[in-house]
């Protein structure tokens, strides 16, 4: 069994990376992920970690360095946030298109403008089409565990996709809490060394990330889609194995239902919001109010089948997210609506946007979401005047007006 230490989410991420024995870590600082790469620097410095630590000149280079190293056949790791992730944008597509299973920790921070270091998911959301596996975490423990599981899933021969492990800025990254840090031997048993079939080797030259045209590219893209579909199964399998080995699980790996039995309405959310929402659900249930919670852990691949199953249970489903796609609603909301489209017992879906720029999503926020949903369930209509100074607003695309 591992050892419990009080560490921050960032330190937990650093431990997660360390235990997975990457050969190359590329490092560029940005608040609030810097302590991840700084902790790894400590590990390297005092001999606890045997890897090539490359201090690069920008995040674009950080991911490029991982690309090059992974293409040469070694396991890599890096971390970033916000502007750093945005700067990596073109390389993200290179990694997924070239099918290099790079592992990256993302501390979700507001994208400027305005400049803001606090939590928001709008740094990772624009990358949802990038072909990376995207996993969200609600605790430091989950961060550490997810980094380990991400390597297993991403490096699987039927997958071969790079991975994000997302955590809310400061709320998780800088919050200290007890985290069980597994023993090296346990992780070695769980995660075998990386074996890629084709790697850059001067003795056997190949070309990775070649020039290509319309004769071949659609089939490569289909390969990426198929890999993403395979990842669904692999995530379930790896989640099971992780539970057997380490005694912890996060739903089925894609999604978790919390107190959904007999729920009238349910809130869907991700990340640290889930933790807070659990408390609210507990309290409301004590007051005999039938509410439930759905945690989406895997944002890509999106848990379509699971959501279709669980959405049937309620008449109103709400989505709470710390991001917006201006002009259309929140990305998690629109993805959910897509996923449950056409269900015979399709619930009314409301999209709540809150916590932009790091404003606290607290119990009041979550309660307000449930209040709106419960009123909707009672009257069959979404209450209309629903913007709270922009702090919390909702979208509801009402298809039933005709």
């Amino acid at each position: 069994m591992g050892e419990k230490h009080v560490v921050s989410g960032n330190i937990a991420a650093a431990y997660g990376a360390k235990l997975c024995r990457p050969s190359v870590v590329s490092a560029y600082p940005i608040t609030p992920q810097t302590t991840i790469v700084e902790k790894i620097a400590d590990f390297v410095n005092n001999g606890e970690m045997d890897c090539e630590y490359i201090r690069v000149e920008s995040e674009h280079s950080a991911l490029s360095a991982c690309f090059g190293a992974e293409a040469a056949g070694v396991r890599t790791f890096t971390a970033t946030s916000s502007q750093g992730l945005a700067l990596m944008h073109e390389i993200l597509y290179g990694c997924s298109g070239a099918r290099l299973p790079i592992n990256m920790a993302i501390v979700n921070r507001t994208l400027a403008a305005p400049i803001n270091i606090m939590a928001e998911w709008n740094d990772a959301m624009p990358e949802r089409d990038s072909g990376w596996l995207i996993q969200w975490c609600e605790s430091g423990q989950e961060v550490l565990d997810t980094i380990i599981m991400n390597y297993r899933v991403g490096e699987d021969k039927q997958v071969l996709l790079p991975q994000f492990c997302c955590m809310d800025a400061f709320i998780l990254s800088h919050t200290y809490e007890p985290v069980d840090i597994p023993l090296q031997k346990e992780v070695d048993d769980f995660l075998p060394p990386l074996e890629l079939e084709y790697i850059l080797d001067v003795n056997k030259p190949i070309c990775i990330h070649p020039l290509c045209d319309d004769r071949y590219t659609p089939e490569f893209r289909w390969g990426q889609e198929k890999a993403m579909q395979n990842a669904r199964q692999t995530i379930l399998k790896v989640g099971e194995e992780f539970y057997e080995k380490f005694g912890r699980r996060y739903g089925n790996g894609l999604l978790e239902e919390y107190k959904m039995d007999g729920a009238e309405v349910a809130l869907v959310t991700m990340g640290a919001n889930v933790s807070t929402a659990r408390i609210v659900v507990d309290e409301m249930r004590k007051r005999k109010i039938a509410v439930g919670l759905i945690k989406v852990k895997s944002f890509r691949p999106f848990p379509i089948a699971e959501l279709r199953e669980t959405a049937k249970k309620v008449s109103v489903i709400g989505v709470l997210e710390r991001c917006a796609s201006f002009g259309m609603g929140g990305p998690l909301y629109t993805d959910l609506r897509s996923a449950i489209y056409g269900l015979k017992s399709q619930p009314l879906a409301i999209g709540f946007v809150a916590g932009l720029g790091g404003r606290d999503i607290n119990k009041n926020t979550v309660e307000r979401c449930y209040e709106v949903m419960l009123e909707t369930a009672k009257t069959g209509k979404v209450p209309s005047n629903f913007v709270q100074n922009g702090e919390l607003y909702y979208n509801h695309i009402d298809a039933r007006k005709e």
Partner: protein
Amino acid sequence: MSDSLKGDNSMTFLKERDNIKEKTKTDAEFLPIPIITKPATTLQNKTGGWRSFKPILNEDKCTGCLTCWVLCPDSSIKRVKLDKRFKVAINYDYCKGCGICATECPVNAISMEREGS
């Protein structure tokens, strides 16, 4: 639209695409990944076929100054070592007939002649 996409008129790239689909078998067993596993070489690409004009060397005029050898953008002029000096020879497998050698030769030892059909 009558002739479009009839079997006997299908374009090469459609054929090639089906070929690749067959070869890569896009199912769980084989994931098509954009990697070129067998390297090629530009030596295979004999660009001499591109010429419309061919450089002809007058060996008597040539002083062996090697200006053409230095300037040829395709490395299609070879140095030939004689006793105490060089001569040059043109590699017509790769020479694209750009004419830089003829233009730059200080003694006009190279002339460009129409070639090709």
